[in-house]
């Protein structure tokens, strides 16, 4: 009976039975392409995401907080490496992926196009941005592609730690002086909407989602994840004594969820298109680092070749 089924049908049955797809398995070309796009964008997000936070390392207000932030940004670089490796198992090349980032062909998470203008932003990013990322990533721990799912398991452990650290910064501010409380509220005001935009367009405006769900790349829809995040985060804001900047936000007894106001989708699509406040700055930073480092990478390659040659000659002698 199996013989009459197409490769694609067998693949779907395999996925439906909750099996993991591995690099050498057959997979539909669109599955491969979708994953390369998604994993590389995820990797780019980790790398570009270092910039808004590294912006505050030299200005962290205590040595302890400086150390924590430095360790966190270092973890993000490590996550980028895991993810580039996962994408490479699909036949993508890290150099090409990075070129695509630098030419603007590949995207990264829209959230990193917002500026970090106060120390409280380090708290808001950890709490909200990492919180939203975790919601997404916990789902991806069960994604159908094995290498991606295993990368996410490792990443989620560190990510949850980062979120707690972010919330701790918010807590210190929210329990601090009036200036610190104002700083925390201002950061929440600026990061709230961009954070809930991180889940992507509404389900009805997200045409690729259905296929991704069917292949079990995605396990939950954008709107489901967004609702879960809001339900979880509102009580955390209340605990801090801070106000979420959404006059329409209210508990709905019937649904057992929070209702919330309309997202500014114009802003969302502008940022995605490259017209957010920091898109140019972020890409310039990445490109400049890459270009300034070219002679260093060339030197490392030239030295490695010389060493290989010397070893060969040494063996021959």
């Amino acid at each position, binding site marked *: 009976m199996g013989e009459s089924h197409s490769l694609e049908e067998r693949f779907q049955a395999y996925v439906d039975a909750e099996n993991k797809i591995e690099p050498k398995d057959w997979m539909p070309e669109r599955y491969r392409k979708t994953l390369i796009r998604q994993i590389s964008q995820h990797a780019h997000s980790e790398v570009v995401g270092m910039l808004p936070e590294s912006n505050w390392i030299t200005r962290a207000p205590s040595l302890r907080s400086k150390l924590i932030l430095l360790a966190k940004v270092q973890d993000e670089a490590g996550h980028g490496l895991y993810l580039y490796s996962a994408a490479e198992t699909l036949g993508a090349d890290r150099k090409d992926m990075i070129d695509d980032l630098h030419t603007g062909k590949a995207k990264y998470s829209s959230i990193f196009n917002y500026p970090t203008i106060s120390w409280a932003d380090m708290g808001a990013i950890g709490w909200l941005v990492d919180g939203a990322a975790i919601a997404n990533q916990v789902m991806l721990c069960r994604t159908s592609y094995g290498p991606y799912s295993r990368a996410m398991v490792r990443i989620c452990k560190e990510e949850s730690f980062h979120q707690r650290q972010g919330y701790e910064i918010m807590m210190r501010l929210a329990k601090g002086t009036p200036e*610190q409380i104002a700083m925390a509220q201002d950061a929440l005001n600026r990061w709230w909407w961009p954070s809930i935009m991180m889940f992507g367009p509404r389900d009805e405006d997200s045409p690729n989602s259905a296929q991704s769900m069917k292949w079990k790349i995605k396990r939950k829809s954008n709107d489901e994840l967004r609702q879960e995040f809001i339900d979880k985060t509102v009580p955390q804001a209340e605990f801090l004594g801070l106000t979420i900047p959404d006059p329409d936000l209210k508990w709905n007894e019937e649904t057992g969820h929070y209702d919330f106001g309309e997202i500014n989708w114009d802003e969302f699509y502008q940022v995605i298109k490259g017209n957010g406040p920091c898109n140019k700055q972020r890409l310039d930073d990445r490109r400049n680092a890459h270009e300034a480092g070219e002679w260093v990478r060339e030197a490392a390659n030239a030295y490695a070749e010389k060493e290989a040659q010397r070893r060969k000659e040494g063996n021959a002698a």
Partner: protein
Amino acid sequence: MENANLYDYTLRLGDTALILGQRLSEWCGHGPVLEQDIALTNIALDQIGQARQFLQYAAELKGDGADEDTLAYHRDAHEFRNLLLVEQPNGHWGDTLARQFIFDTYNYFLFERLMKSKDERIASIAIKAMKEIAYHAQWSAEWIIRLGDGTQESHDKIQQSIDDVWMWSGEMLEADKLDVAMMEAGIAPDLNEIKELWLTKVSEILKIATLEMPEGTGHQRGGKKGVHSEHLGYILAEMQYLPKSYPDATW
């Protein structure tokens, strides 16, 4: 203060670690390749970790309710005791590596001896830090070799970087009154001995890297007594602005 000399000496160790960590952390997110971004950030992290240990100890010696943050954030440039070398700007990758190599090689021999310091606290910090410092010294020496014996461009660049940073190298190798007093107390090592070891190692690595040892004695002095280059004021303005703007806040 009962232990004024020990306090000053501990500050030198803490401030040098802190300012270098601060400088290196400027690289975070801007390295030539992700792996080396991580390596350099990792070294920054180690330096700041060591700075905390020394500054906590200095704060205890000072008494008066000071802590590591009081010392890091509420002293001005003339009260900082770091080496001039570590406050120099990062420049390009080669400039950062030249500074790091010159410093790490010294720091390796220094900490190897500080592990046997008669001051138990300094000895225990040094023992803990030694693993990190051995890694830093290996990493920066390897990069000097890689750049020196890489391409013609990298060779010329790193030679220039070493020549440029050399003038700041003498201060760490020359004992002043405080170093002598600490040496006599069995707390600090003999810097003459470290200077010999440093010269031997640096010339050995430069030779492998096909680079020339610069002439000159690294003549600039001042950091250890609070007379700094123009760079430190900016480093501190950036580093200290929040605690200074909000003196009643805790973070």
